């Protein structure tokens, strides 16, 4: 019996393919990069609970931990060199449960650094990625692709 590909991995791979197809990436992607993205996404999905506890514990030492509905999901950052890692999301408990990944769009205009964080879920009816309302990012650990 074939095993289904996790939706989050699918979303990340589709995003990567889109970036490659657009030809707008400033860095070259090879098979190693794709494996790195898939591998990190897999590990984050497997150990999200432990990473969530680690982040909460680390921030808790400075009374800065997010309490309540939190979850760790893969994050893919584009526009600032390319990073993949884990993001702790916080917000509306109903929406936090649905979030599958976070996409971060970064830029640099001189010394100005704009950044947009897009927590994303997959619409069960349409099967398309959608922005999760009421959810934002609390903390991020990511590695350069």
């Amino acid at each position, binding site marked *: 019996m074939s095993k289904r590909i996790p939706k989050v991995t699918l979303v990340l791979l589709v995003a990567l393919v889109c970036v490659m197809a657009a030809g707008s990436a400033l860095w070259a992607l090879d098979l190693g990069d794709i494996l790195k993205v898939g591998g990190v996404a897999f590990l984050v999905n497997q150990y999200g609970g432990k990473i969530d506890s680690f*982040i909460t514990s680390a*921030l808790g030492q*400075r*009374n*800065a*931990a*997010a*309490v*309540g*509905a939190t979850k760790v999901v893969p994050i893919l950052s584009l526009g600032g060199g390319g*990073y993949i*890692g884990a993001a702790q*999301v*916080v*917000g*509306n*408990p*109903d*929406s936090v449960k649905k979030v599958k990944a976070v996409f971060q769009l970064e830029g640099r205009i001189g*010394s*100005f*650094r*704009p*950044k*947009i*964080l897009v927590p994303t879920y997959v619409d069960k009816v349409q099967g398309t990625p959608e922005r999760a*309302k*009421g*959810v*934002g*990012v*609390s*903390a*991020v*650990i*990511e*590695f*350069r692709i």
Partner: protein
Amino acid sequence: MVRRSRVPLVMAVALLAVLLAAAAFSAVTATSRASERNGRPAGEVLIGDNLVMVLLTSAGIYSPSDRAGIVAERLNDAMSAGLQAEQLSARSLPGGEGVYAGERLIVSVYGPEANAHGSTPAALADSWRDSIGRVLFPGEALPEPEPPAAEQPAETPGPAESAPPSGELDWTGTAQKWVPIFSLETEGAYLGAAQIAGPTAQVNKVKGVAELRLNFQNIGRIYAYVPTATISITKLDRVQGVSVWATGDIRLAKF
């Protein structure tokens, strides 16, 4: 000819009836859909085919149909957890009224929503609770509504004590705003603006966002956003339930 006992047959029929009843109950789910009332967008909540609630107002970033979707999910969660008639109640929450399934908030009712229905928050919450109860528990008595706050005994906890814990903040009344962000990094200090969002009462408390960041050249980076209630570098007073959506900053000092 051997005559079979009727007992196993009766038991089998009874078992089948129980299974059918259980299947019928478990098949009931709450759904939502977008609609219009007097040319204005509305969100409808249904249980099975029965309309139990119409939401007419937006709350923060949530349209009426978004709110209806949230309410439907909460109802489904409550039904999955084995909701009973006596758990369904309408009672006060800070700034308004709420319909609850046990301790689980299903929907909150504030002034604007009640005004749009030509009602009061308490009356509208009672009406929605009754609608849900009639569909899920036909013929069963629901708990009596709580008396108005003025008639409550003196030992009734105040709003601060009766407010839900931070993990159960009321997300149907949400807001967003831009606040200053101060980022301390290995390369320097940055200052800019951050867009935050969360429950209205929590967002109002936020004075700024502190970003703590460690960059490891060519390897990776670790950073955290902490929405704080005070502008202080030495003390972080995190406001719970608030998150960061976007930032923009420039470098103030280079280390």
